[in-house]
């Protein structure tokens, strides 16, 4: 069972070999390191770039204009904020040129907290990104979804932002990627670069197969009847833990992993809320002008009269950063207990 970093690597390998990916690049993306999370180790088209995020995004746009299929990495989402103008440009190039130009590019940048990353290795990016039209935005919570969403991202003729949660990069999934060996140790031997000298190392790629998670399609993680919880990224496993805690208390939570931030699966949310009458949105980006607030607005607009309780948001606190010390980080982004407590409160609410 691949972890998420391996799953991304396998997807990029599949992309290079079968989907026309021409360039996988960014800071420390190529040999010898293969990415700070190892997600790009051993890839044929991976190369290292100068330490210049604006150049990385500009290069990706230019490559896409020239008919290439680049996957560009910004090492941490924390360092993408000096490129927002270029991201906006990538998002408006098709529209501004009245449909002449399309940019088949993927930008991948790890997001979120949970790795003791302090102020600048803990940023989320879904809120700001969702405010930039013209992109598609995906955020996997499992290795298999990372694989399937990366394949979709590569195939898409538009710019796609791929946001793997930092804290889940080393998490092993429960599902096999089609073609992946059953034994994770075998997979590791095949595709993980050795410690020490790597100059002669070459990966042996398992014969992974096409497996696509369509952009815009949510996943029902856990069916339930009493309340709907819509989460994404790292908050999916946290919400799942919380939901399991609540089982014993007789609270039956339906958990949806949104997976695609834009376009998103409104049908899945609507159907669930029509069933439960109660909904909570969980994510770790800071809570003011948060994408979950958009979903609450839409819920209010379209489902006001089926609601049995006010929709709720559980998100990161509106703070300038996430502190390094344990207590600080835990006080800043949603934890299992906080999510469980919010679920309880929502379940208890009488209409």
């Amino acid at each position, binding site marked *: 069972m691949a972890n998420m970093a391996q799953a991304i690597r396998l997807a990029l390998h599949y992309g290079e070999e079968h989907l026309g990916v*021409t*360039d996988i690049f960014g800071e420390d993306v190529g040999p010898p390191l293969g990415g700070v999370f190892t997600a790009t180790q051993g890839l044929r088209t991976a190369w290292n770039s*100068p330490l*210049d995020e*604006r*150049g990385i*995004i*500009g*290069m*990706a*746009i*230019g*490559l*896409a*204009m*020239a*008919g*290439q299929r*680049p996957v560009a990495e910004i090492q941490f989402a924390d360092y993408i904020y000096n490129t927002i*103008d*270029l991201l906006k*440009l990538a998002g408006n*190039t*098709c*529209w*501004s*040129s*009245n*449909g*002449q*130009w*399309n940019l*088949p590019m993927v930008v991948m940048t790890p997001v979120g907290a949970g790795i003791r990353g302090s102020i600048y290795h803990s940023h989320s990016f879904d809120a700001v990104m969702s405010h930039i*039209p*013209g992109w*598609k935005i995906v955020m996997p919570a499992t290795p298999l979804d990372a694989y399937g969403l990366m394949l979709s991202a590569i195939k898409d*003729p*538009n710019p796609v932002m791929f946001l793997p949660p930092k804290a889940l990069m080393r998490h092993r999934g429960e599902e096999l990627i089609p073609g992946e060996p059953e034994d994770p140790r075998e997979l590791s031997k095949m595709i993980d670069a050795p410690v020490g000298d790597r100059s002669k190392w070459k990966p042996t790629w398992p014969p992974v197969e096409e497996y696509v998670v369509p952009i815009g399609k949510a996943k029902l993680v856990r069916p339930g009847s009493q309340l709907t919880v819509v989460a994404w990224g790292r908050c999916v496993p946290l919400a799942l833990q919380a939901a399991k805690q609540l089982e014993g208390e007789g609270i039956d939570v339906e958990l949806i992993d949104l997976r695609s931030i834009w376009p998103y699966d409104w049908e899945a949310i609507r159907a669930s809320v029509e069933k439960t009458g109660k909904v909570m949105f969980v994510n770790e980006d800071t809570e003011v002008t948060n994408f979950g607030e958009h979903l609450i607005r839409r819920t209010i607009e379209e489902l006001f009269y089926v609601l049995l309780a006010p929709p709720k948001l559980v998100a990161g606190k509106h703070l300038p950063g996430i502190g390094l010390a344990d207590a600080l980080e835990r006080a800043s982004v949603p934890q299992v207990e906080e999510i469980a407590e919010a679920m309880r409160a929502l379940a208890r609410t009488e209409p």
Partner: protein
Amino acid sequence: MSRPKLAGAANSRPALAPELLVEMHDLMVKARALEERLIQMYKQGDGFFWIGGPGEEAFNVPLGLLIKKGSGLDYDYLHFHYRNSATLIAMGEDPANPMRQMKNTATDPYSGGRNFAGHFSKREWNLAPVTSPIAVQYSIAIGTAYAQKRHGGEGITIVTGGDAGTAEGDFATCLVWSSRPGNELPILIIVTHNKWGISTHYSTQQGPKNIADRATAFGIKNKTIDGNDAITSYLEIKAAMDYVRKERKPFLLEAHVSRLYGHSSADGANRRPEEEDCIVRIEEVLLEHGIMTREQMDAVHEKWQKEMAELHRKVREEPQPNPEDVWKHIYWEGEGS
């Protein structure tokens, strides 16, 4: 009626063939007539905003003539700023199209009435959309150039921008990424230096005597030229391009040019008498060498002015976009990609 001077009467022959000079003059005047018409359109209310390139024809016309025009990696990729109309005219663009954009008609082929004048985009010619944010084209051009480096052949990437914009980090990005050891890019980096950023003079904001000097530390060949001289421009662009095409390495070419009608309609779009006119300059050469008479040249001006007025009348009648058009092309609607 004045007669052409005898060719022999001049001190030395121009370095370019007379036919080419006549062609360049024709295109320069055509481009100028287009811009002057665009300004008039603005002043008559046939457009909300004007920005363009009158004063840069001596540089931009030869640039257009020397471009390898076409689509895909074997042809030149173009990342222009908003003063490159003369380059398009030299490439054979229909002047009605810039007028359509000026009047933001639905027929505007560059942006469907969405973008400002001078914001060209023409995928069949590898012409990337001109962007309003200054200097970002320098960060984007490295991408097409990198694809062309890998592809080989003679296609190159050409990027242009203004002097003030070289203060943006994107210009440095272009220098850094164009000169990576072993990955030097086939890119012609152009700065058209008109000494102004809106109201701010270059000399008050930037230290480099020549902007081109900034390339030296990167091992990038570079040159600063008088872009108001059409002959110099042609020869120097050609030399720089030949180098980039053959050597597959970057070259930074800085050209001093004039800003003949100010920055844009925001500062009035009126003729600035203090700026040198490059058309006067080429006409002096044509006259001096007996290549054209004053009357012949006047006829060229008249021809294009008339033509532009006619096109204006035509474009004025074309339809405006519909409100629901805003929803088109948010994502790619074409085949494949």
